[in-house]
Every structure is written in C-alpha cells, then in structure tokens.
C-alpha cells in the first residue's frame, strides 16, 4: 500500500527532479561572448579555508589586473577573463566531483587548481581524463609529478624542497662552529597528509646526506590541536633542529606550544608562517622561527602586469587588507601563466594551449616559470626566512639572504 502511493507520485517527482537538474545547466561555456571562463574548486570552508581564501584572492587579483590592462588577446581579439568558483570544503571526494561538474556541466575548458596537494591529487586524474589543462599554484606534493600527467602544470616548487634548506643551514652553522654536521640531532613532527609527508621525505633525505641523527619522527593528526607529546620528547632529547609541517594550523600550533612549554631548541623551522600570520598572532613569541617560503616580496623579480614583487605585495594589501602570503602570489602567477599560454597558442583549442603551457618560459613577479616534462616548475627556488625583530627576513639560500641567520635561538 505504502509502495502504491509512492509509485503513484514517482513519475511526477521524477519530472520535477529532471526539471530542477536541467535548470542548473549553465549557459556559460569555455568562452562566452568576449569572456574566457576558468573553473576553480577552492576550499572556502573546512580545514583549508584560510589558505583557500589566499588562493581565491590571488586568482581574483590576477583577473582584476589582467582585465584592467585590457584583457587577453587571442588571435587578434580581446577577451576579458572570469572565474567560476566552487567550494570543495577541503575534502578530496568533493573536489573530484566538482572537477567533473566544472568540465561536464559548465563545459569549462580551463581549470585552475584547488588549494593543497591532497585536493590536487583528487582533481588531476579528472582533468587528465578529459584532457583539460590545469594550472595550479598550491599542489606541491612530488607524487603529483611522477604520474606522467600531461595536462597538469604547477608554478611552485615541490614540497620535498620546502625545508631542506633549513637542514643545510644547520649543517653550515655547525661546520662554522667547528662541529661535525653529523653530530646534529633532528626532530620531525609533521601532519599526516600528502603535503607534509613529502616535506618530511625531503628532510629525511638531506639529514641522511649529512649523517644527522633523527631522534624524533612524529606524525601529527589532521585535527592538529595538540603536539605537547612531541614537545615533551623534544625537551627530553634536546635535538638541534625541530621541523614542523602542517599547513597553517600546524604553524600556529608549533609556535604557540613551543612558547607555552618553553621548549628550547636551537632551530625551529616550520611551513606556512605567513599564511598563518604567526607574527601577528604571537608577536615576540614567534621570534627566530624559520619559515619556508615559495616567494618573498623582497625578491628581485618583476613583470609588466604587477611590476616588482614588492609592488604586488603592496597592491594586494591595498585591496584585501592584509599582506599576501606566497599562497596568494603563486595563485596569481597561475592565472598569468594560463593567459600567457592562451595568447601564444592563439586559439582556445585545449591541445594547442596545453602545448603552449609546456613551452612556457615566463618571468613573473613571482619568479621565473619554466615547466619540466612532468609539469612542475624547476626555474624558481625555495627561500628560507627567519622572523627577526618581528619581520620576516630572507636568510637562505645565500644569494637571497639579506641578513645572517640567528642561530642558535636564544633560550626562553
């Protein structure tokens, strides 16, 4: 009986569903009139929402600036650009679905990357399947670049390079002090996610190269609310270097608890200092922390869209009310790379654009961009900065260093 009623109403329900679904079919395709539309699923909510915001602002600033400069000229015609956003809620399952949605339902042919390696790992197989070019600035895991992906291009340095400079710097300092680098002890505490596990792999490789001993090698849970267990071990074992990686939440957690527990360690190196705004949050408590960065405003790069890196830094602040962390800069650069490839390809054919992307040789405010066969950018180095007197100062590699590193950190 129950069933009878249901089946009675089903045809109508089906029709309503079909109607609702078909009404969501957008009219915009890849190029609508004189506007080129990019698709992007970014983390607006969830654990990556802070960095998702940086990513979006970076994309938006590029769109605004490129449009203000007259847009993109493809085959003699000027186009404006726009981005269709979706919220992937920081979950890979959602990101993969949205990538399908962008390509299949919105019929968008150009995809900008999400924030983070895990999400990029979920999106890349989809863009590959449909042969849709994706340029991304926030998926650094090296596992993205050993798959033979042909449509994935990343403007940033891969994640295993993030903190290796810190290990080399410590070795350098040890040699200077007349100690053998192999006498140094390393403590590693990284989040259990694709990005941070790669950061760890890079550190382990370099530590082994110097013969350093790894005394702590902890995985932190994704919730990242507490790392006192690790820090208690640090207090007991007194390593020379403590490396922490866990996106913005990890940076905040490390700096906060190192202070709270008065952990004395000669070198504290973390990722995502700027994105997490540890200086603003902890002030003097963040002093002497070493921070890995893809880009700094003090670098001497420049381009015609944004001027120098410093110009970009100030312009971004004028619009969004905060200084851009590198996550924003690399997102902006992703759009620049895409647009440059379109202009060179002279058409909206995805294959032509893919080939043009592969042949990219572009100087931007963010740095030089030239892709390897695998799609990652090898032209741009990582930089290590230290918080000295409340300011981030480049300390390594030596060609970018503006001040000598403070080592060891003074005891608290």
């Amino acid at each position, binding site marked *: 009986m*129950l069933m009878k*009623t249901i089946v009675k109403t089903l045809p109508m329900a089906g029709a309503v569903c079909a109607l609702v*679904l078909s009404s969501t079919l957008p009219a915009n395709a890849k190029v609508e009139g004189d506007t080129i539309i990019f698709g992007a699923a970014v983390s607006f*909510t969830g654990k990556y929402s802070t960095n998702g915001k940086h990513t979006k602002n970076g994309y938006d600033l590029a769109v605004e600036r490129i449009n203000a400069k007259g847009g993109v000229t493809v085959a003699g015609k000027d186009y404006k650009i726009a981005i269709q956003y*979706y919220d992937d809620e920081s*979950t*890979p399952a959602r990101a993969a*679905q949205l990538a399908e949605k962008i390509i299949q339902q919105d019929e968008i042919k150009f995809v900008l990357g999400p924030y983070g390696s895990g999400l990029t790992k*979920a999106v890349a197989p989809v863009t590959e399947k449909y042969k849709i070019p994706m340029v991304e600035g926030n998926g650094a895991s090296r596992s993205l670049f050993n*798959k033979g992906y042909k449509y994935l291009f990343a403007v940033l340095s891969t994640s295993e390079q993030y903190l290796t400079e810190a290990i080399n710097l410590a070795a350098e300092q040890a040699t200077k002090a007349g100690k053998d680098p192999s006498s140094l002890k390393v403590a590693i505490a990284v989040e259990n996610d694709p990005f941070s596990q790669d950061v760890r792999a890079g550190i382990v490789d370099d530590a082994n190269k110097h013969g350093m001993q790894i005394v702590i090698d902890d995985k932190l849970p994704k919730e990242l609310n507490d790392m006192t267990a690790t820090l208690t071990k640090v207090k007991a074992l007194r390593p020379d270097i403590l490396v922490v990686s866990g996106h913005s939440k990890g940076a905040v957690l490390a700096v906060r608890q190192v202070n709270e527990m008065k952990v004395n360690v000669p070198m504290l190196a973390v990722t995502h200092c700027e994105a997490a705004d540890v200086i603003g949050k902890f002030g003097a408590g963040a002093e002497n922390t070493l921070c890995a960065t893809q880009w700094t405003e003090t670098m001497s790069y420049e381009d015609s869209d944004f001027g120098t890196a410093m110009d970009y830094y100030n312009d971004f602040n004028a619009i969004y009310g905060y200084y851009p962390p590198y996550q924003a800069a690399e997102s902006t650069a992703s759009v620049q790379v895409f647009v440059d490839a379109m202009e060179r390809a002279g058409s909206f054919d995805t294959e032509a654009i893919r080939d043009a992307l592969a042949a990219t040789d572009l100087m931007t405010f963010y740095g030089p961009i030239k892709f390897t066969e695998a799609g990652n950018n090898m032209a741009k180095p990582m930089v290590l900065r230290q918080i000295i007197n409340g300011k981030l100062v480049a300390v390594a590699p030596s060609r970018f260093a503006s001040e000598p590193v403070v080592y060891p950190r003074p005891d608290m």
Partner: protein
Amino acid sequence: MSRKKLYLLLLVGLMLLAPVLMPAFKTQLAMLMLMITFALTWDIMGGQMGYNSFGNIVFFGTGMYVTAVIQRDLFFTAEEYESLAGSLNIINGTDYLTGLFLGLGVSVVVCVILAAILGAGILKLRGHYFAICTLGLGIAAAEIAAGIDYIGAGSGLVPPTFPHEDLGDRGYFFYYYFLTLAAATFTVLSWLYKGQFGLAINAIRDDEDKAEAMGIHTTRYKTLAWCISAFFLALAGGALGNMVGFIDPTEVAFAGATFGVWMVLMAILGGKGTIWGPVIGATVFHIMQELFWTYLFGWQRVALGILVISIVVFFPEGIMGFIRDRWPELLGHKVDLKSSKKGSTP
C-alpha cells in the same frame, strides 16, 4: 499489469535512461545512487531495529581500502605502484575489471566477518551506549588507516586509473554499478523485511527484552543485521574509491563527518523504519545539497544546517512519517473517523 508494476517499471526505465538523458550529471547521479544505498543500509539497524549506529562508515572505508589494495597487489608490488599510481593506462580493461571485482568480492567477505566480530562484541550494548561506541569505532578506524604505511597512511592511496580506452566512459560504468547496487539493496531489504528477519528486528526495536523472552535470539539477529549492512557498504566503498580516484583515510574512506552523518540524516529525513523513506530522504537530501552548492555558494553549509533543523522540528518522523500522519489513507491505513473524532486512541 497492475498500476503499481507499471509505475515501478517506469521508474526503472527512467533510472536506466537518466545518464543518457543527462550525460553531464553522470557523477552526481552515481552519487545519488550511493546516497540511497547509504540511507537504506543505515536504516536496517537505525530504523528497522532501533539501533543508532554511527559506525557503519567503518565497513564502507574498509571495503574501499581492501578493494584498492587487491587491485594494486594483484599486478604490482607496493614500491612499483608507488611511482605509478594515478598514471594513465597502467592497467588494461581486463586486468582492471579482474582486480576490481576480485577486490569487491574479498572486501565483502572481510567486511561481513568484521561486522560479525565487532557485532558479537558491541551489539550487547544498547541505546546511547551503542551509539557512542560505534562513533568511536569510526574515528578509530580512520586513525588506524592513517597510520598504516602499507596502505599509504596519511598520504592516501590512489586506485588504478579507469582504463577508459578499453572500457569506455567511467561515468556510465560507475553510474550503472551504483544503480545496480542501490536496486539490489532495495530489493533484498524489502524481501527481508517482509519475512521473519523483518519481524524479528522490528520486535527488537519495539521491546528487546520482550523479544528475547519470546525466544528470539536477539544478538544473533542484531549481528546478522549489521552483517547485511556491511555486505552492501563494502560493495559501495570498493567502487567509490575507484570513482573518486583518491582514497584519503579521514576524508574519503572513513568520512564520518560527511558520509557517516549524511546516512543517518537521509534516513531520518525520509522516514526511518520504512523501505521508501531512505530512498526519498536520500534523493531529497542529495538534490538539495547539489542545489545549495551551486546556488547558495558560501552559505551551503548554513542552508544544510537549516534543512537539518527543519527536518527535526517539523518532520520528526521524516517525510514518510509526515504523510502517514496527515494522509494515512494514502498509505493504505484505514481510519475510523468516528472513533478518532471521539478522541479515543487505539
């Protein structure tokens, strides 16, 4: 042919044609079928038996991992695969299907055994104690999976890429897979609910002590019910890992905060303890969710929250319960108007 059969046939036809009519929505439609399976399998325990389980996601995630590991280990060593995973064309159609279906088969066995073992242990608990225990189970499973290097730990595991050159469009493949799964779940459950099994678990819901006193082996039935959930969830998880293409321990496999909660919500929204309730609940929930995501961008979670609150406040018995209260005659219940006017309760 009766009207009922005709409509059912129409529905089946519509479902079979849906991805052809709306090719751009294949993935969403496949997700809808998954949601229906989620709600139906949750309702076995949560609705028909009155045991609120928040741990069903354990079987889903286990199925996902077991399938992917079999797919990997059948043709590769773990190290070899590490550098290949996610690359295109690493596996041909025959090998892919062999790996997938063998993996699904093994994961069903593993999950059913797991349900039997876990069930024998914790199904002696009742009410809130059982709910909390299963909640812990889901979280523990995610943490354990995130710590095992063999299955990729926190970096996740990538199932072999679908060989679309051999097998055609992945979207169609997974849609029809999930459609078959949802239909099979529905058919098997409606058949089971009509028989002794249905009566027994309903008796447990209504009064477990009395049921036991009547001679029903309650723990046996409870464990059996959980094993049936595990059976279908293993099949769902194994395929979803392949459809998403990236298995993350906490966000995709043991996704308690999303799938784990949704399966409860959908069953309650539709009306728990009925066979059509979970189907309707899942459909409404999934369509609402997709619409919110598209049209209430940035506010989708708020909208979803409001939806959930509205359900609980206005439709505590779900959509089916609401219909039963308002228009009982629609569902074939006979209403004695005279006595109901007098205000007598049955």
